[in-house]
């Protein structure tokens, strides 16, 4: 998994990171490369700078500073030496590379008629490492199932960036597709037809149309497709039972989700928001919630104990009054398994 990322890095930076201790290397989440500024990594939710000898330091003073040459080589490598073929990606500000890793870019933008056409003079890269966590969603799966009607609740996953939304939604897709609902990979039922709209190629990390992550045997992936159009296309062509989309929030996404929910298709989507009240502050999400397009909300929160989740049932078609699932509502995604593993 990391070899995919390390191949892209200029030799100096690669050998530097390879000299890092094993433990942070395994939980590596982001590599931030900024021209002439300290090299930063983040692992396990904390960020560190990398010193010239591969040690991790708290302070940026002694840290290694990538040069302009490094940045140029990195840019060439991640664009496959073909900036001209990446115009759409540059307009959006990130490039997804093989393995589903997303590389965010920052630099000077080029405007055309007031709209951003691309970025040039790129001086900042944020390499986000995609991880496949098989079983990440297993404790959530029973709560996604509407047993009375034998279908999946339309759910909206809410979390701030970097809380594991995409990892979770990928495993939900896999579990639905295989039919693992009961928690764990036991309790197998009928798998569902899953349609995944993978606008950023992060969920399935397709290479030439074939998913490289396991998203299940009954999943169809519309790769690098705008979400709204992709959802409509899948609805028309692939007859999905569940539609999965990452990071909704634009007006056209809302229209497509409404369309899908009226067509009897369950939608599982993620959005950037701290919690439900925060989500209601976003006009598109608010509209969707008021229309009753989602029957439940899943909030994710990352704590020291791992990723916690809370399910909020929404009253169908009514005003979205949240009622907590149980107790304080928060439970660990890893569940007892992790706790048991944690105690010696």
């Amino acid at each position, binding site marked *: 998994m990391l070899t995919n990322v390390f*191949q892209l890095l*200029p*030799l100096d930076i*690669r050998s530097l990171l390879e000299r890092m201790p094993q433990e942070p290397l395994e939980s590596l989440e982001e590599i931030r490369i900024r021209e002439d500024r300290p090299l930063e990594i983040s692992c396990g939710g904390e960020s560190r700078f990398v010193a010239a000898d591969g040690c991790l330091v708290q302070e940026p003073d002694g840290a290694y500073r990538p040069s302009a*040459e490094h940045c*140029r*080589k990195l*840019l*060439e*490598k991640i*664009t*496959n*030496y*073909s*900036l*001209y*073929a990446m*115009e759409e990606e540059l307009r959006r500000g990130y490039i997804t590379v093989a393995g589903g890793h997303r590389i965010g870019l920052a630099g000077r933008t080029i405007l055309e008629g007031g709209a951003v056409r*691309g970025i040039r003079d790129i001086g900042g890269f944020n390499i986000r490492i995609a991880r496949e966590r098989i079983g990440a969603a297993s404790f959530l799966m029973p709560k996604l199932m509407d047993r009375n009607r034998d279908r999946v609740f339309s759910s909206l996953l809410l979390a701030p960036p970097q809380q594991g939304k995409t990892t979770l939604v990928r495993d939900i897709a896999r579990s639905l597709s295989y039919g693992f609902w009961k928690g764990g990979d036991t309790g197998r039922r009928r798998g569902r037809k899953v349609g995944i709209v993978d606008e950023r190629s992060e969920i399935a990390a397709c290479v030439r149309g074939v998913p490289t992550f396991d998203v299940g045997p009954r999943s169809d992936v519309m790769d690098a497709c705008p979400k709204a159009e992709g959802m409509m296309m899948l609805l028309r062509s692939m007859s999905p039972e569940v539609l999965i989309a990452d990071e909704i929030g634009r007006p056209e996404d809302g229209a497509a989700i409404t369309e899908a929910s009226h067509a009897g298709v369950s939608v599982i989507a993620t959005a950037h928001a701290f919690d439900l009240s925060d989500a209601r502050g976003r006009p598109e999400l608010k509209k969707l919630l008021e229309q009753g397009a989602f029957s439940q909300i899943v909030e994710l929160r990352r704590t020291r104990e791992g990723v916690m989740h809370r399910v909020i049932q929404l009253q169908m078609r009514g005003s979205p009054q949240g009622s907590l699932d149980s107790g304080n509502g928060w439970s660990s995604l890893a569940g007892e398994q992790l706790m048991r593993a944690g105690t010696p």
Partner: protein
Amino acid sequence: MIKLLGAVLILVAGTLIGFQQASRFAERPRQLRSAAHALKRLETEISYGHTPLPDALARTAAASPEPIAAILRKAAQGISSAEGLSFQESWENAVAEEWRNTVMTGGERAVWLRLGTTLGISDKEDQSKHLKLALSQLKSEEENARDDQARYEKMWKSLGVLLAVLIVILMV
């Protein structure tokens, strides 16, 4: 008897040298033209096909005659290798190694090297402009090469024989 054999050898050698020089003049416009075709193809791959550069180079190489194909292939190999070369370095290496197999001269080489600093690192329109510029420079070189061919090809062919004859006469 030996004198006669020597004279024949000198005549044959002189003729061959003359023909070889002449063929360089005949070959240069042909290579320039295939270089121009290759650039044209590369431009199509880039601006219409949006083909990534390594693939575009490989496809262009497959459709081009040697020795142009060898340069393109070498450049494509350079960037897919694990050495972490930038495209410019890989391109310059390829030109440095493969150029001696061509009969093209310094002017074309400069045009070719300049491409290495621009290919792949800008948007479609810009790539297209750079390739068109290189193409027009190669075209004007090709015209020069044709003039040279008309002027020197025949000359070298007869010059070789005549010089050989002169040497034979002086020796006898």
